[in-house]
C-alpha cells in the first residue's frame, strides 16, 4: 500500500514539475501543474509521517502561493505576449541540461552510499502538537523572526506593487 502510494505520488510530483517547465504556451497551465506537484509532495510528507508539514504544504503552497500566482497571471492578462521569440539559443539549453545531468549523477552517487533503514518513531512524531511544542519552546526565536520577516514582506509587496500616486 505504502509502496504503491509512494510511486503514484512520486510520478505525479515529477510529471507536474516537468509540466511546469515544459509548458511553453500559457503560464496558467504551468501554475495548475504546480498545484499537482504541491499536492503530491504533501502526500509524500504524510507518507513520511510528517502530518503537520503536509497540512501546511496544502494550506500555504497549494492554497495560497499558487492562487497568488494565478491571481497575478490573470491580473496582468499577458497571455503569452512579450514572451514570443523569448526562447534561449539551443547551445545554452544543451549546456544547462548537461550541467544538471552531471550534478545529478554526482548527487546520486553521494546519496546512494551506506543508507540505514527507517528507524521506529513514537506516535507523536510529526504531529501538530509535537511540532508546535518544539516551535514555541526551543525555536521561539525563529518564530519571532519569521513574524518580523512576514511583516516586512507584506510592507514590501504593498510598496512595490502600488501605483505611483503623484
Amino acid at each position, binding site marked *: 500500500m*505504502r509502496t504503491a502510494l*509512494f510511486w503514484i505520488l512520486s510520478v505525479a*510530483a*515529477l510529471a507536474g*514539475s*516537468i509540466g*511546469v*517547465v515544459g509548458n511553453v504556451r500559457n503560464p496558467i497551465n*504551468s501554475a495548475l501543474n*504546480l498545484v499537482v*506537484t504541491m499536492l503530491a*509532495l504533501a502526500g*509524500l*510528507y504524510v507518507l*513520511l509521517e*510528517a502530518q*503537520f*508539514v503536509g497540512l*501546511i504544504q496544502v494550506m*500555504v*503552497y497549494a492554497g*495560497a*502561493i499558487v492562487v497568488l*500566482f494565478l491571481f*497575478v497571471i490573470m*491580473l*496582468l492578462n*499577458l497571455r503569452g*505576449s*512579450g*514572451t514570443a521569440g*523569448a*526562447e*534561449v539559443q539551443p547551445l545554452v539549453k544543451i549546456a*544547462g*541540461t548537461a*550541467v*544538471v545531468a552531471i*550534478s*545529478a549523477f554526482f*548527487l*546520486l552517487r553521494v*546519496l546512494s552510499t551506506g*543508507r*540505514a*533503514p527507517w528507524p521506529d*518513531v513514537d506516535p507523536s*512524531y510529526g504531529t501538530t502538537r*509535537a*511540532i508546535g511544542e518544539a*516551535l514555541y519552546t526551543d*525555536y521561539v526565536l*525563529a518564530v519571532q523572526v519569521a513574524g518580523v*520577516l*512576514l511583516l516586512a*514582506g507584506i510592507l514590501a*509587496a504593498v*510598496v*512595490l*506593487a502600488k501605483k505611483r500616486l503623484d
Partner: protein
Amino acid sequence: MGDISPFQFQVVAALIFMVGVVGVLTRRNVIVMFMCIELMLNAANLSLVAFSREVGDDQGQIFAFMVMVVAAVEVAVGLAIIISLVRNRDTLNIEDASQMKW
C-alpha cells in the same frame, strides 16, 4: 515503510530539484522561472523531511516549516516586483529586464 528506502525519497527530491534548475536555465518567462524556484524550494523541503524521518528526529520538519515561511514572503515580494516590471516595461521576458533602473 514497506520496501521503500530513504534513498528513493532523496532521488525524487533530487529529480524535482533538477527539473527546477533546468526550468530556470531554459525558460525566459519571469513567472515560469519564479515557479521553478518554488519547485527547487519544495524539493529541498522534501529532502529535509525525508532526512528528518530517516534520523527519527523532527527538527528537520521545523526547518522545512521555516523554508515555507521564507518562500511565502519571497513569493509576495517577487510577484510585486513582476507586477512593477510589467507596469513599467510591459513584458514578461527576463531579457528585457537588463537595467537596474529606468
